[in-house]
């Protein structure tokens, strides 16, 4: 069985990759995708902890996996709304480069 640390490292790396993308990518779509990556890294955690539950706590517990399902659904909804918003932004700004969108400041 794969040591739990590996999973943790993996999910953390994934999370960091996503975070890095959110901070650096100029295209809003890519940023959106990076957020998805971050969410998924969390999902991995949930599922993993759930399956390692009896190792850590000595009992089995499915709620982590259930949670993962919830969050996937939510993520989907989020993407939908996000894309809608990006469209309306594109209509007005004629761009989706996030650093161009800065009327509101200070």
């Amino acid at each position, binding site marked *: 069985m794969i040591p739990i640390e590996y999973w943790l490292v993996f999910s953390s790396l994934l999370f960091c990759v996503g975070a890095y993308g*959110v*901070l*650096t990518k100029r295209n809003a779509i890519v940023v959106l995708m990076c957020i998805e990556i971050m969410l998924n890294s969390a999902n991995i955690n949930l599922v993993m902890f759930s399956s390692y539950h009896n190792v850590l706590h000595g009992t089995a517990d499915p709620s982590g996996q259930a949670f993962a399902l919830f969050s996937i659904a939510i993520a989907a909804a989020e993407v939908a709304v996000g894309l809608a918003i990006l469209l309306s932004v594109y209509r007005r700004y004629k761009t989706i480069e*996030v650093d161009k*969108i*800065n009327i509101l*400041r*200070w």
Partner: protein
Amino acid sequence: MLEYAWLIPVFPFVAFILIAILPKRTLSWEDGAGYAIGGAAAALILSVLVIWEVMSGSTMVGDGPKFEWLVIGDISITFGIWIDQLTAVMLVVVSVVGTLVVIYSGAYMHGEGENRRRYYAEIMLFISVMYGLVISDNFLQMFIFWELVGLCSYLLIGFWYETPSAASAAKRAFIVTRVGDIMLMAGIIILFKYVGSLDFVTLFDQDTAAAVPTDMMVLATVLIFGGAIGKSAQFPLHEWLPDAMEGPTTVSALIHAATMVKAGVYLTARSYPLLIQAPESLLFVAVIGGVTALLAASVALVATDIKRVLAYSTISQLGYMTLALGAGGYLVLYADTGGGYSAAILHLMNHAFFKALLFLCAGSVIHAVGTNNMRLMGGLGKKMRITSITMLVGSLAIAGIPPFSGFWSKDEVLAAVYHAGEFDGIFFLLWFMGIATVFMTAFYMFRMWFMTFAGEPRSDYHAHESPKLMTFPLMILAALAAVSGFALFISDGFKYFIEGSIGGLLHEVHHESATDILGVIFGDPLTYVSLVLAAGGILLAYKMYCVPGFDRSVFARGISGRLQVALENRWYISKFYDDFALRVVYSISLVADAFDRYVIDGIVNGFAYLGGRSGNVIRMAQTGNVQRYAGLIVIGLCLLLIFMLYIVPWGGW
């Protein structure tokens, strides 16, 4: 009827109220002079009745009617009236001079029109509070009236407030005397602490007074005398009095010669039972008196303003009284005689009469000539006979020529000082000062008289004798100035009479018949010394200012020249005060103001500025770039993590 003595101040006060509030037409003659004379006269009658009672032996010391002014817990301050021989004398002086001056004013102030109402109101207020001061039976009550007479003097000096000099003189007088008053207040507070009461009857009880530690007693008495220094224009706070001559001459006569300035002497005499507890302060009193007498007389030598001459002579005479009181304290202590004390009071009375007389004469001269400057006068003798004669009487009296009043009291004073010399050598020095002053006094008085009345007019004016209303008081005062010295011989003698007010301090009071007194006086060589000096002064004045062709410029050269300059600048004392007030105090205040604006308020505004502006800096982080926001979230997250993982455990909260 002594318990009705509190009515004495009431009459003038009522007059004051009436004059102040009555509609103009009901004031009738001279805008209220009638009411004023009425009030003053009523008070005069009562005062005479009082002194009659007192002379027949009844006094009211601490057992009169009382009024509870203030109670805080176990502290209670009650006001009442205190009538003994000293009070009686003061009452008579104030009432006589007051009444005469008011009558005189009826003519003198005729030209003032609208302002007369203010004048009479203020004069009446002054007379009233002056009575209040005299009959107080308690230091705080006395202090209250003490300040109020100061106020009246302020108002009356500034009577012609449009002239800047008058306004500033009034201010200066008030502030300078205020300095003295503050000392007086401090002295009172000290006594208050140790005795727990301010009633004379308690304080003058030698046992309770012993409750005060010696050094505190010295301090207290010196401070109380400080009040006298201010009010009675003693060195070094004497410079306000000459300036006070900016007021109407009647005011100078009443307040700044006869009554208010005597308040300091009165206070000193009143607190004798305390003073003799502290010989050091007696010495202080004497020295101040001697110095003042000499200093003031010296300035009077060169003054050319007729009123200033009189002002300085007033200061000098007050110095005599203080000196006598100081010496008298020693006599009471060591020789068990009230000689100095009685001499001071006698001189107080005599001086009141002849100085008032002199001022009123000067007033009538000014009234006629329209100037104060003696250089522009001269030759008035023929035109103003009554004035010149009455003034001559006054001058002889102050110069100490027998049988005029001044002679007797001044001689008593000098004798007492000389006598005190037996117990402290310094009194001999003071005696020399006094004797020198005799010479100067005689000189400057007759210098004034000659410059005014003798010779030919030095400018063209059409002088004429003043109206009856003015000359009548002059004549009365002249009579008094001539004879009041004989009080020494009335019944048991003035000495015996007045010693009654310090009876507690003397072990045995000895009668002296008129003959022994005369014997003492004329048996004493010193009497003749002073007589010779006085005569010499008069002669010198005659030589210099009456006989034509005397070259006065000899004095303008060399050491005497420089001396003359110094004298004309009044020993630079008032100049020093002005510089102190303007240069030192005012610049300090300017510095403080700048400090307040820029440092204290600067700090406040500094904080405000930071609060207002720092936001402008911080908000710059808000660039509007959303990724920057996310980045800040990450940074904040990391910082928090570091803080919680490392700093918090290390900080040991």
